[in-house]
Structure formats: structure tokens, C-alpha cells
């Protein structure tokens, strides 16, 4: 019987983390090198965790499926990273960042975790600057800030439109330093395919060497997963082509609980679809909404070119509906508003896109200022679409971007399986039902730099885990299972390609488990996904062998997990009879179309336990809000 213990320390919220850090057990510096820790993933969370654990003296084994740690998808984050520095003297504070994040997450996050995140946010900036991250600066040489959605203060630090890249270069450089010093050993082109659990504790992983095809076993005293989110379940998302859920999903199937899988974020400012061959959706940074105005025509199926639509016939719907936050309304709200106007037939040329217009900003600030702020984003836009956004408004539409759900973790970021820690987007902890812009980078680095180094020591000191040899029968068993799956995939030789099936899954997910959901659709989705899963196992075609580079095999393996996760997302969405954050159930809305939360019945984390034959058992962690009292989330 699983009992969910959040292990949130007692005391005033502002003292919880401080007290907790003091109460956590320590490992003697000389003994740390006797402990081996596996870190899977080298994005912001994984690279920073590897670096920090290495600095402490642990023996770290780090794994990435990329050819280089520098390629993880954190690199694509454009806009920035939040921190409660209050450098702008505009009333920011740790408490305000905490408040904004809990409210932004529509009261479905754990208060204590969020407070801690806000508390360490300032240290993250300090750390990054000391590593040489070239944040934007003012002429006086001090750091510059910009605003982001869901906040009325300027607390976002940025490095042009490439903040994620610069932070990742910094974190990977810190990890490289540990590789140089010998504490971290990096394994590239290795994809984690399973978790090894012995006597209830995570003891190691099984990976596929993506060059030789060999299935390799690695054991450790603890395993840290920092493998990102699962937006690619939609096939088309802003995630990188290779982002996948395999590491966390297979850990889930080994006993780790999956929390709030239906909480997915649809980002409002992405480029609209161009056609069937499209492989992914491109994000345009939310920072564009600082100066860009979002609008559609007031007339349905308006076929005029945007510059021909006069001012009085334009509907600046975000400014109209949410006057105090306007174009900087949070992501879930902006996305849904875009869907609404497009459903009414008022989208660009009657289709699925809205305008993001810089005409007024260029008039007010001059082209040079706009160019300095967004020049590279405008270039990207023009490269992809062939339109010049200085002259013609951008066309944007929402796209799957981030997943708030993930493996359940306690305050120490440990899952219900002792020894299995989950960091960054892969866990569920800090963003509730909706993540605010520029908070993902903050969470990844908070987890890796400032939380795991403390809580890892406590686990090792209190559980005293042993190192199991990889010749242990359980390692062999897991390895055999992985090999069996590979063999099976290669032997089906059906008629459908992996991408073909994945696209079909994506359509089901987008239509029925996407921006708006209802009971009927979700039930249909569940049965359609089950059928598709069956079809996959009889009709997929994976050419080639398992003994060398086989990218189709890699994708097929990932699709297995999406076909299972997709079902759980629908089940979770069906279970949650309310609308909150990124989860919008059409049955639960106010008359003006705003999301209707049900705090009485659903103020809990839905943590799902995997049972035989694709049954899941629901465990609830009740959420208590002592500081930020739940209220209707209004940005009006």
C-alpha cells in the first residue's frame, strides 16, 4: 500500500527550507566519493545536478542520448529566467514570486515547494553570473530585466532571445569542469530504457548504446532523472524531435507514481501549421507579448490582408477581456482565448491563427528599439514563414509546449521509490496546473544547483543504500526484457511507419486531450488510444537491425510509451471534474467562459499507480493552502 508523504517540514513557510536543510543528514566529505549517483539527462536540471553532486565529491555517472550534453532542449528556451531580486525596485519579493507562481498554477501546486523555488531564485542568478552567463545589461553594467506573462513586476533575466542556451552552456561548463576533475563521468549517445528496482529501491538503469545497439547496465546508490517533459505525445509540439517520456514512463511502470499527467501547457505564441509534412512547431518567445499586440478581425471569415483591416474593425481581445494584464495574460488564458476567437471563425483568414502585431510598438519606440529587443526572433520568423514581421503582423497559434505533470516527488524531490529522484520538468512539483513564463529554467536550476545536493545526502545517510553489482539477477531480468522489446519491434514488419502512427496519436490527443476537453471526447480518446496501441503492436514497421544506429527503432521505443501515457493523460483529465490552469473541461466553466475550479473536491495532486494490464490506481495528495488562499484566478 502506497502512502504519499509529501515530507513538507513544519514551521512558517519562510523558514521551512532553512530548518529542513539543518535537519537533513550529512555525509562526511571523505565518504562522498564512495557513493555512486546516476544522473539521466543533461538539460538544465541534469547538468546542474551532475555538476553540483560532482563538486560535493560524489562519484557521478551522467547519461544523455545526445552526442553532446550541450544539446538538451533547455537550450531552446528563449525568453528568460525569473528571480525575485527586485533589482527594478518595482515591489518584487520572494513572497510575491511565490504568490504569483501559486496563483499562476491555479492553486494546484504544493505551497512549500513553490516558496522554496522563489527563495533560491536569486541565488540562481548569482551562480549563473559567476559561471559567466552573459545576461543582458544596462549601460551602468548592471543586470537588465524584462516582464513576462502572469506578473506585474519585471523580474525576468535574459540573454537576448537565447537565455536557455546561455544557462545550459553555463551548467554544462560546470559539469565539464567536474568531468575534467574526474568526479563526473559522462556517457553520451545512451538512452535510458528501464529502471532497476531491487527491494523497493532504485538501484540502477539499463540503457541502449545508440551507436553499437548494445544494452548496457549501470548500478548506483541513487538514480536522478532529469529527462524533461512529454509534450511530444501530441506529435507536434515545441519540444525537440527526440524529447521523450521513456525514462519517466518506464520508471512509472516500475512503481513510481505519475502525478497530474493531464496538466499540459499549450503555449500561446507559436507559428501556425503549414502542412502535413510538418515535423514540429516553432515557438516564438512570450517576451514578444511585451510589445506585440494580439488581435483578430471583428468579422467572421475576414479574408482581407491584415494591413487592410482598419483599426476599428480589429478586436484586441486580450486587452479587451483582461485589461489589467492585457497581452501579458498567463499562457493558459491567452491560449484558450486564441482558440475561442478562432472557433468563432475570426482567426486569420478564418483559419487557426491570430495576429501578433508590432505596428504600434514600432511607431512608439522606433524600429531600432524593436530590432534590438527582438531582432533575432523576427529573423527566425522570416526564415520560416517568408513574411517580414516589421511590415506584416506575425501569425501565431497555440501549441503544446510544457508538461506540468510528471513523476510524483516529495519535498526532497524523491519519488515514492526510495533512491529515485526526479528533477526539472520530469517531476510535477512546482507549477501546479499552469506554469508561468520564465519559470521552467528557474525550476530546473533550482532543483539541480540548490536542492538535490542537500536532499541526496540525507537519503544516502538515512537509508544507507548498498551498491548492487550489475550481475544481480534483477539487472539481468530487466536487460532481457528490454532486449525482448527490441526484438519484438524489429520482428513485426507491418505496414505502418512509426511517424504515421505517432501522427494519429497526436491528432487524438490534440483534438480530445488538448486545449479543451469534455467527458465524451475523453472517453472516445481512451478507447481510440487503446485501439491504436493494439494496432501498433501488429502493424508497425521498424526496418534495420538492433545492432547499430537505428533511429526508427529509437522512435518506435518512445512511441510505445506515448501510446500508454496518452491513455493515462485522458484518464486523469476525465477524473478531474473541474477546469484549472492548462486543464480546461468544457463542462466546468463560468458563463463568460473562464475556468471553474472545484477546490472542495479536487484540491489534490492526482498520483497514479501503474497496475497490471493498463489499470491505474489513484492516490491523492491533498493540497493545503495556508498562505495563498485559493480564489478565482482573475487577470481582469
Amino acid at each position, binding site marked *: 500500500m502506497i502512502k504519499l508523504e509529501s515530507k513538507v517540514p513544519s514551521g512558517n513557510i519562510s523558514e521551512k527550507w532553512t530548518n529542513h536543510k539543518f535537519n537533513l543528514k550529512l555525509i562526511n566529505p571523505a565518504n562522498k566519493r564512495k557513493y555512486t549517483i546516476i544522473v539521466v539527462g543533461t538539460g538544465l536540471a541534469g547538468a546542474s545536478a551532475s*555538476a*553540483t553532486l560532482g563538486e560535493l565529491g560524489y562519484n557521478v555517472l551522467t547519461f544523455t542520448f*545526445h*552526442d*553532446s*550534453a*550541450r*544539446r*538538451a532542449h533547455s*537550450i*531552446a528556451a528563449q525568453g528568460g529566467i525569473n528571480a525575485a531580486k527586485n*533589482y527594478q525596485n518595482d515591489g518584487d519579493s520572494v513572497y510575491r514570486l511565490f504568490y504569483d507562481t501559486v496563483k499562476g498554477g491555479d492553486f494546484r501546486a504544493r505551497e512549500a515547494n513553490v516558496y522554496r523555488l522563489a527563495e533560491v531564485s536569486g541565488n540562481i*542568478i*548569482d*551562480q549563473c*553570473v*559567476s*559561471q*559567466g552567463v*552573459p545576461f543582458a*545589461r544596462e*549601460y*551602468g553594467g*548592471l*543586470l537588465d530585466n524584462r516582464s513576462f506573462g502572469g506578473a506585474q513586476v519585471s523580474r525576468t533575466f535574459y*540573454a537576448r532571445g*537565447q537565455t*536557455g*542556451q546561455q544557462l545550459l*552552456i553555463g551548467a*554544462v*561548463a*560546470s559539469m*565539464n*569542469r567536474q*568531468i*575534467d576533475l574526474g568526479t563526473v563521468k*559522462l556517457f553520451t549517445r545512451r538512452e535510458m530504457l528501464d529502471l532497476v528496482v531491487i527491494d523497493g529501491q532504485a538501484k540502477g538503469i539499463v540503457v541502449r548504446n545508440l551507436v553499437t545497439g548494445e544494452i548496457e547496465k549501470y548500478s548506483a546508490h541513487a538514480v536522478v532523472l532529469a529527462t524533461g517533459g512529454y509534450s511530444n505525445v501530441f506529435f507536434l509540439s515545441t519540444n*525537440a*524531435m527526440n524529447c521523450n517520456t521513456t525514462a519517466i514512463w518506464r520508471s512509472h511502470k516500475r512503481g513510481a507514481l505519475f502525478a497530474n499527467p493531464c496538466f499540459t501547457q499549450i503555449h500561446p505564441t507559436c507559428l501556425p501549421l*503549414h*502542412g502535413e*509534412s*510538418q*515535423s514540429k512547431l*516553432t*515557438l516564438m518567445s512570450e517576451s514578444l507579448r511585451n510589445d506585440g499586440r494580439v488581435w483578430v478581425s471583428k468579422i467572421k471569415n475576414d479574408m482581407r490582408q491584415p494591413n487592410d483591416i482598419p483599426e476599428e474593425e480589429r478586436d484586441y481581445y486580450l486587452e479587451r477581456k483582461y485589461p489589467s494584464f492585457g497581452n501579458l495574460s498567463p499562457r493558459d488564458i491567452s491560449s484558450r482565448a486564441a482558440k475561442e476567437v478562432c472557433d468563432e471563425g475570426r482567426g486569420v483568414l478564418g483559419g487557426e491563427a491570430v495576429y501578433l502585431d508590432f505596428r504600434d510598438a514600432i511607431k512608439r519606440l522606433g524600429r531600432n528599439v524593436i530590432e534590438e529587443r527582438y531582432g533575432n526572433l523576427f529573423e*527566425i520568423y522570416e526564415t520560416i514563414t*517568408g513574411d517580414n514581421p516589421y511590415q506584416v503582423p506575425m501569425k501565431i497559434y497555440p501549441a503544446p509546449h510544457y508538461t506540468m505533470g510528471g513523476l510524483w516527488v516529495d519535498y526532497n524531490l524523491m519519488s515514492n521509490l526510495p533512491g529515485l529522484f526526479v528533477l526539472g520538468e520530469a517531476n510535477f512539483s512546482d507549477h501546479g496546473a499552469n506554469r508561468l513564463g520564465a519559470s521552467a529554467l528557474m525550476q530546473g536550476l533550482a532543483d539541480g*544547483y540548490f536542492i538535490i*545536493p542537500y536532499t541526496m545526502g540525507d537519503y544516502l545517510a538515512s537509508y544507507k543504500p548498498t551498491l548492487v553489482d550489475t550481475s544481480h539477477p534483477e539487472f539481468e531480468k530487466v536487460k532481457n526484457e528490454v532486449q525482448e522489446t527490441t526484438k519484438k519491434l524489429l520482428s513485426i514488419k507491418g505496414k505502418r*511507419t*512509426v*511517424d*504515421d502512427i505517432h501522427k494519429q496519436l497526436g491528432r487524438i490527443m490534440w483534438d480530445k486531450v488538448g486545449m479543451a476537453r469534455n467527458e465524451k471526447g475523453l472517453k472516445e480518446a481512451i478507447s481510440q488510444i487503446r485501439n491504436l496501441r493494439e494496432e501498433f503492436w501488429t502493424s508497425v514497421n521498424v*526496418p534495420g537491425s538492433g545492432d*547499430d*544506429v537505428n*533511429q*526508427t527503432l529509437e522512435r518506435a521505443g518512445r512511441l510505445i510509451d506515448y501510446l500508454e501515457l496518452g491513455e493515462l493523460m485522458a484518464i486523469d483529465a476525465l477524473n478531474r471534474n473541474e477546469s484549472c490552469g492548462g486543464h480546461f473541461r468544457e463542462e466546468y466553466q463560468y458563463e463568460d467562459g473562464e475556468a471553474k475550479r472545484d477546490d472542495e473536491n479536487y484540491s489534490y495532486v492526482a498520483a497514479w499507480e501503474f497496475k497490471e494490464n493498463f489499470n491505474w490506481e489513484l492516490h491523492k495528495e491533498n493540497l493545503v493552502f495556508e498562505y495563498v488562499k485559493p480564489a478565482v484566478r482573475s487577470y481582469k
Partner: protein
Amino acid sequence: METKILKLKLKIWRQKNANSVGSFVDYDVSVSPDASFLEMLDELNNKLESQGLEPVVFESDCREGICGTCGLVINGQPHGPIPRIATCQLHMRNFKDGDTIWIEPFRAKAFPVIKDLMVDRSGFDKILQAGGYISANVGGAQDANMIPIPKDVASEAFDAAACIGCGACVAACKNASAMLFVSAKISHLGLLPQGQPERYRRVDRMIKVMDELGFGSCTNTYACEAECPKGISVKFIARMNRDYIAAKLKSKTLEQV
């Protein structure tokens, strides 16, 4: 919107593995001009897979031009004919109906082919692991605004740090030299005040590893700058030369590596 379809002939380098001999194989494709170059290859691969044939191995990840995973030599140019973009940002509207497109992997002794168009660029990381960092443990950082950095210095450091480590510089250079990459990394850290304590040790160690890996030397043709998707300037190579010469000739305390 025109819905014209481009018919193209592709000549793609196929090579089973690092030890085998490769050759060009012809493929005919039809593709929408709105598709990206890699989506065109996706479609080709989907077709090959549906026929039970092994698809063309090529690497890509973010498809937004920032991760540096993709990199093909298209008609003799790394990342194709359009300047300042990665392969994933190249769109088919830049080609004409009936064009023949030659697609080759990055070629360099230090970038051996793994399969088809996929090469091993791990040399870059070996260079970075030999000093491409600032030694700053977590926990001891002072307040971020304690180190004022002039806007233009931060901006120049960023220009260098914008490098995505794709390897196009090596692929474009007639000598397969890695100096643009290495100089970008060295300059990013060397320009900032935080990077000063390790400035000369860093350049000394990184160059040593770079030389050992079999990259060629720079002969200042600047093909690297012309092909770099991020437009990294060769002025950083000059800067690196200066730092290296200083490290070797000036510094007395530096341990020689």
C-alpha cells in the same frame, strides 16, 4: 498561397558504418516549398520505411537552429546555401523545381562518419572539458550585481557565446580547423571579468587538446565565419591567437601543458 510542388533529385551519401566505404545514392522526391529541408528528408525516410528500407540516418533535434545537432553539407555548403541558419531552418522555397541536391556529411578527420550523414563531433566536448569553464562552485557566488560589466563587453561575450557547437566551421574550413569554435568558447569566458583568473591556463590547455584531436590549422580564409549559422566573427580567432601567444610567451607562473 501557392501549392506548387517541387520535384527534386537528391544525391545522398550513404555509409553503413565508420569502417565501411560510402557512396552516393539517388532519390527522387516531391515536396511542398513550405516544408523545411529536414522535413523533406523526413518524408523521404517515411517513404523508405514504408517500403521496409533503412532510412537515411541524419541528426537533428530542436529544429529551431539552436541545439546545433543538425548539420549537412548541401551542395558543398555546410547548412546549405542560405547564410546564418542551421540546416533545420533551411526551407525548400529556396530551391527550384528540378534541382539536383547533393547531401554529404561534415567531413573531417576529427569528425569520423558514424553512419550515413551522422558524424562523431565529440572532439568538441573533449576540448571544452579541458578548461572551457569558469571554476565557480555552487554556494559561494556573490550577488550578481556586484560585478558590473559594461554593456558592450557583455554584448561581445554574448556574440561569442552564441556559438551552437554544430561544427559547420570545421566542415567549411579547407583545413578542417576548429579554431572558430574554440575561439568562440575561449572569448566568451575570456572577455568577462569572471573568466580572468583562468584566462591563460584555459587557452593553453584547450589549444593543446584541439591540436591533439587532428583538426587542421587556421589559414585565415574565413570560410568558417561565412558558413557559421550564428555569424560568429573571426575576430575571436585573432583574440585567441593573442591570448595563446601571451600565455606561451609572457606568463611565468603558468604550468606548461
